[in-house]
């Protein structure tokens, strides 16, 4: 069984690429940090990660310009990556990038409006948050029920419906019906709809979350020095295991 290969995209103000690499490595994967200006062939990778940071300084909205650049450089390749059954994670700014790329807006044949608005306080916040997981549908969250992770963002408020109250409910219900509402805060820090901290797509392969699991891969990183709930590392192990388990399958198909 070959080692799982992860591509981590950085540059233009992304800043969590190194700890994201350490997290995947601790889960047994082989990682390549790729600058956004150096286009790579995604076929060489099993997992794609968009780490946290402040791409383009959050100017024009977090993730906006970085997503434009990804779309320009990679076009449909990101969607194809998912179609090939490969997992993608977007953490914090990476989640914002994935949202801007529209990876969460397709529900079955429908399109919904979902985005990450400024925190209701208007302020950046760094705090550790207790989270509940509803993760059966998401390959990244298998076996996790409760998890304690740091959030560090100014634009993490999950919103639906683009300001239209009816659409808001309708859009959210569609997500919920498919079990894509996978991660919730115990105490809502930013005004997110229904306390949402993370979402996955229809396939369960694409996972976006505001909290930072890569900053919780060892007990010493927790504020009290001991782990509460599952270790953040579990997410990365889940994805690596998923790839390993499905490697055989894709070989059979070939």
């Amino acid at each position, binding site marked *: 069984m070959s080692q799982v290969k992860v591509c981590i995209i950085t*540059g233009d103000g992304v800043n969590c690429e190194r700890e994201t690499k350490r997290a995947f490595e601790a889960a047994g994967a082989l990682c390549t940090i790729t600058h956004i200006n150096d286009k790579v062939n995604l076929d060489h990778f099993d997992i794609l990660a968009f780490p946290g940071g402040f791409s383009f300084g959050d100017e024009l909205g977090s993730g906006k310009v970085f997503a434009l650049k990804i779309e320009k450089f990679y076009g449909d390749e990101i969607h194809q990556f998912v179609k090939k059954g490969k997992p993608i994670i977007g953490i914090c700014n990476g989640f914002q990038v994935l949202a801007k790329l529209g990876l969460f807006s397709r529900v079955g044949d429908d399109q919904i409006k979902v985005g*990450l608005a400024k925190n209701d306080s208007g302020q950046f916040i760094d705090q550790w948050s207790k989270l509940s997981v509803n993760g059966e549908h998401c390959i990244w969250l298998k076996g996790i029920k409760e998890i304690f992770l740091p959030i560090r963002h100014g634009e993490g408020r999950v919103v639906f419906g683009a300001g239209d109250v009816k659409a808001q409910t309708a859009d959210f219900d569609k997500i919920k019906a498919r079990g894509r509402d996978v991660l919730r805060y115990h105490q809502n820090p930013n005004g997110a709809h229904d306390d949402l901290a993370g979402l996955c797509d229809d396939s369960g392969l694409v996972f976006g979350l505001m909290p930072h699991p890569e900053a919780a891969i060892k007990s010493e990183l927790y504020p*009290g020095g001991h782990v509460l709930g599952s270790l953040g590392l579990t997410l990365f192990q889940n994805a690596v295991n998923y790839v390993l388990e499905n490697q055989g399958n894709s070989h059979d198909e070939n």
Partner: protein
Amino acid sequence: MKETEFSWIKRIEIEEVMPSEEKHLEQLLLHHGIKAKVNRKAFYRVAGNGQVPSPEVFEKIMWDQALQRGQIELPETHFDGAVSVSFLPGVTDNSGKALEEAFSLYGHDMRCFSGTWFEIKVLEGTAVLGSDKWTKALGHFCEEVGNPLIQQVTSYQVNKDRDLQWLEGRFKNISIPQVHIDHDQKVESVSLELSDQELEELSRTRCLALNLEEMQTIKNYYLNDSVQNRRKVKGLPLTPTDVEIEVLAQTWSEHCKHKIFAANIDYHNEQTGEKFKIESLYKSFIKKATKEIEEEGVDWLVSVFSDNAGIVRFDQNIDLCIKVETHNSPSALDPYGGAITGILGVNRDILGCGLGAKPIANTDVFCFASTELPEKIDPQKLPAGLMEPARLLRGVHKGVEDGGNKSGIPTVNGAIVFDTDFAGKPLVFCGTIGTLPAKLKDGRNGSDKGAKVGDGIFVVGGAVGADGIHGATFSSMELNEDSPATAVQIGDPLTQKRVMDFLLEARDHGLYTCVTDNGAGGISSSIGEMAELTGGAKIDLNTHPRKYPGLSPWEIMISESQERMTFAVDSSQEQAFLDLARERGVMATRMGEFTNSGYLEVFYKEDLVADLEMDFLHDGVPTLNLKARSVSLKERPTWISLPKEKKPGTKSEALEKLLHCENIASKEPWVRQYDHEVQGATIGKPFSGSNGIGPGDSGVIDLEAHGGEENSMATVGCGLAPRMSSYDASVMAKQCVDEAVRNIIVSGSNPDKICLLDNFCWPDPVLTSKNPQGDIKLGQLVDTCKGLYEICKLYKAPLVSGKDSMKNDFRGKNRAGEPLTISIQPTLLVTAMGHGHKSELLRSSLEEVGTLVYRVGHFQASLLVSEYRENFALTDNDLNFSNEVRPEDWDFNKCQQTYRAFFKANKSGLLQSAHDVSDGGVAVAMAEMLFDSGLGFQLSSIDKSVGDLFSEGPGMILVGVRPHNQKAFEVHFSQEGVPVELLGEANDGGKIEFTSDDSLSINQALNSWRRNWEVSL
């Protein structure tokens, strides 16, 4: 580019469909009796040539339909007033630049200018519209959201015809900010055939900040035969060119040369009668301490006082470098810009340290006047023309937040100190720690600096503009109403992040031989300093990219435009260096090469415009001769006294009030806006304990995550005690060091691996007719340096880097027009960086019922300089208590002994938690240890006096001990000769009990401590 070069200009307004709250601004209007809703929009002016892109293109590039609505045509007017904030021509516009980049991805070449547009809808009592009250409220609103030094801030009232006309035409008649420079670009010679008075006048009008003797030295130098002969041969004027005089002024500025620390001082202590002469405070105390400590066996210093930052080796794999800077003057004028350029500037110091270090942590310390000052005193007494403390704090805080967060560097430690004497000038300290591989892949030491003759000189990063001219000299002057606006700048964290990523990649590929940052003095300093390594340099200023045409050569030479680094590149690597820069989207320009001519030769195109002898440039500045007088102040002089609260009736009341006072209260709402843990290595956080609520004592970084040894961690803490400087400046220095050291000791640092940084911020210490107390302030400086020397020696903690800022005074008027001078309290910030093992990391929170709480260390404390005294109206009698030890009697030997015993106890696993006793004394420290768990505590002795509980002093630590370790714990400290006192044990009672009828619930205490900082909104 001229305005006429664009064939079209569009205005786009973008609003959030689900906006966040605008509580603070709505509150501001409410203060004026106006209930209103504020809607914040972004607006852009976009200019281009040829075909205007389709609305779909604007939509795709500029907004997100799930979150925003964009308007490219005039929307209906649903507001009563509007405020527009946009940048003045030439000011860094990060949002505009990002938008230009976004358009260029899709093949559109445009110029973009950002702004913020506030729409104000009055909800009740629309009769106010058109009234003076309305106009006044809008005026106040403008002051709050913009700064006229860097921004155009305009308000509009819908009910005024002229304004309405503009409002309705704003999508059609659009102008864009363009820089127009009216002076021509030729180089002028500056005549020094002037009287002494005229020389001083020239220094003042050109913002040179040189004194008469320095001006005369330059004048005489140019009269030298050999100088004159060389200039004739070279075809230069016999008097200095404007480029030369400006370069000399930057290089010789107090900011760059630290002339006061290098001065000859006649010292007289009027209390003891002691008199002596000092040749350089720096050599006599600072450097001396480090040198002697090194001779006594400290073997982990790699580079001290020579590079941009101190470098130490606590870990065999990676070296640590650390630097702390101040950015006081710029922050006073524009708090956001001043602070963000401060933090990005000190990051560059680290990037330019050795062959380029990677920043892994930031620290920040601010000193302000109380945010309540305008309410507590007659506002007419406030200094005129300066921003109010709350506004300064908000701006400075936001600057440090953006600078750190957007660069991906965690802010791990800091403090905010309030004192009325900072009303004339706030202090803004920004620090950065970096890691440097001990050896690079190509075998070079990471700490090397190896520019060679013939290496190309490259400047990487941004273009220069008129912004940031005279920063170095301006900061060497007092603040007044003429302070130059060009010294104010905004930082661009994205460009700097790109430069940082590029630099580390280029370093690992071995693409350059030397690097340094561009800070004060711009390239005149960076190239000037690097040229010392080879003995000369030759550059052409015309090669440097500029933000707009029209800059004179001298302006290019000294502009402090941000985000630039200077490199020396071997000729064989030049192409690879440029290629990598291009691939990473970073601007890089070759300006010339390093030589060994002994001269800094500066060209503008073909013309030689400066020919400066390296020796004169770097060593020609005359030494100052100063007088210092040490007098007994005991009671501090101040410009205004604040009313104090009545003495509390009970200890619990005292505790509750102290927890709430600005200096002790949690700075949580501020601190949580910093990212503490990006890079995934912050193991000691500002808020610790299982729930992440309890206060942390120091910032602790996992070095293993950064390539260090297994189990290796770095710790950082800080100490400052400005109020002690009037009481006893020498004790002040010792207290600062003790506090900084104790902060990191309690987290598990090894007492044999601690280095220190000294940052002095002083009121003007030069005696002149305008500054009659200058000699006393210099006396305090001498005493501080002496104290610092003694304590460093005692703690075996070498100073590895430092900085000073010497003119922290305001000389102007108050709002009533009366003359007003405010000098800061002499302030020393000590930063301590240490090392330890992750397995021995201690946190401050008590976690289990039954944990015993001890006070470790000799009780040496007093109420004389304490928060208790600062906050409450007391009689002399209230200050006395039987266990009191006054500051002059504090024995720091005992503290040192305590720390060693503490370290051993922790190594043996005897300690569960530890917290230092600091502001507010034992009682406050005790409460803080309970906040995370919400457990209670009963004081076992009912005889504790107010003095025992609230006095402040060095060397004391509270520790939590699990009951099964009690015996071993007591035996250990008894063997070490360090006293411990059992104060009580954690219980589940949920309150702090002093006696059965005097207690405070933990919830109440916590609420008090987490004060509602309304000003943080």
